């Protein structure tokens, strides 16, 4: 079977610094894959390459049979890739509900005149979006916060809202950038369970960046390890755990 996402020899340099070098990954439909590595290994840069925030210096990205190289981020999103950000990027001064509604943007089909005169598809589509957004919020236990400003939510809820918002895009592939950053072990555990549940329920493919390796071991089927912009290892959690290079480069200093 053709993989959903496949990159080959993807590289990005900033000036003389090679942030990511020969990045080769593939994701099959429905997989949950982890991308781990120490701080500054190039994980987020890799995400930014996949989502079009950066244009790769060399290499190719194929998603669902189409090349993503050179596409603007919003076009890549429309093809079916949604993401969250390492440093949360919500629409702070908008309500929780509006945050999610915005993510339905390109699924809404009414035109500007319909919106101005409130005729045609405007009513039905707005109603549908509201309904869907509230459903999504209820999954993340945020329904009672829907009129709250996003910036007023506690940290953990902001993380959840960001995932809810990414799901509202209705993607095929979801990229999560350190979703558990800043959470306590209990919250992290809950989040990880939720991620595997989301994958099943929404029939998603997920690529997950995590700084802390032990967290991803439990839920990911495969793991890629980056170090200094280069792929250090790739395999099942068990293979990664026993990989001496990974242990030396990454776990060695932490365990």
């Amino acid at each position, binding site marked *: 079977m053709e993989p959903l996402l496949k990159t080959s020899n993807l590289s990005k340099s900033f000036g003389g610094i090679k942030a990511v070098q020969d990045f080769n990954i593939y994701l099959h439909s429905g997989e949950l894959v982890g991308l781990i590595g120490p701080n500054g290994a190039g994980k987020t840069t890799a995400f930014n390459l996949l989502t079009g925030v950066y244009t790769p210096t060399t290499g190719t990205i194929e998603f669902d049979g189409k090349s993503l190289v050179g596409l603007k981020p919003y076009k890549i*999103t429309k093809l079916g890739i949604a993401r969250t950000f390492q440093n949360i990027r919500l629409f702070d001064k908008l309500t929780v509900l509006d945050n999610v509604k915005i993510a339905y943007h*390109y699924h809404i089909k*009414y035109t500007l005149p319909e919106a101005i005169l409130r005729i045609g598809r405007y009513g039905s589509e707005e109603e549908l979006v509201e309904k869907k957004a509230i459903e999504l919020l209820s999954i993340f236990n945020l329904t009672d916060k829907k009129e709250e400003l996003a910036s007023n939510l506690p940290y953990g809820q902001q993380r959840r809202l960001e995932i809810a918002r990414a799901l509202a895009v209705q993607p095929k592939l979801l990229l999560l950038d350190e979703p558990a950053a800043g959470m306590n072990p209990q919250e992290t555990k809950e989040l990880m369970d939720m991620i595997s549940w989301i994958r099943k329920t929404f029939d998603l493919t997920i690529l997950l960046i995590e700084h802390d390796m032990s967290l991803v071991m439990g839920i990911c089927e495969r793991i890629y390890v980056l170090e200094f912009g280069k792929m250090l290892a790739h395999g099942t959690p068990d293979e990664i755990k026993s990989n001496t290079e990974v242990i030396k480069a990454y776990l060695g200093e932490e365990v």
Partner: protein
Amino acid sequence: MMIKRLRKQDAIFLLISFVVFAVFQFLISERILSSFWRLNIAVICLNIILASSLNLINGITGQFSLGHAGFMAVGAYVSAVCTMFFHLPFICSILAGAAAAGVLGFCIGVPTLHLQGDYLAIATLGMGEIIRITILNIPQIGGASGMSGIPTETTFTWLFFCMIVTLFVLKNIINSNQGRACLSVRENDIAASAMGINTTEFKVFAFTVASIFAGLAGGLFSHYFGIAHPSSFTFMRSFDIMTMVVLGGLGSLSGSIIGAVILTFIAAVMQSYPEYRMIVYALLLIILMLYRPNGICGDKELVNVILGRFKKGGKNDGTVAENK
């Protein structure tokens, strides 16, 4: 269900507008208001169109334009040329002015709107001045001495009608998918594009729509005063409009209305003390920013605050009181 509530909201808005209109029309036609106040009410209508449309760029979309006067100038001159040289009917001229400003807004918006923050502010300010200097150097439309003898066809009815259309259109844009996209650009453009929103498209969209209304205001302006003069459209005019928006609250339409009313009112009251007028105006700006940097309304709509969220309706009730 939802659409019925929204349509009802629109109906209330129009109803209140009509009542306000009837009151003022009565006061004007019965000559209860002096010509001085009739003039200032006209100016208020113009300023509301200008401020609320600029709010779409500066408040809703979070871009920073200081060139609104330039688009107003385009509307004023194009419509004047249409009436005087091509003898088009008033309404066609006004629409032509608005359309010309919109086209220019689009053409200027596409290259400049990838600039951010201060840079965009300076670029739009520069664009506004270039428009003005260009007009200054076209002798066919009067050059530095401006155009005069434009038929004064703008009546209070026209002004009020255009103001209501502006507010109605802006209000419904803001509460639509397109408006939400604009808001998301303001809040976080990187996240917005990650949500599939073409941020450039919506910046240009907001800029173009606002330019159209600025052009509309310009056309009404030149056909109200009967003149179009380059000195009416300097960057100081853009500052004035921006001040109304900031004073009322960025992102709040009712705020823009209040801002336009208050500042026009102050300018009118101080008319008899010209030497103090600008000083008071300047101090007001400084003090207001020091004590209420988010403006009078913040980014909230006045009606939502006062009436609670199920009684959304006319946004004029706040301003009528100011007029008395």
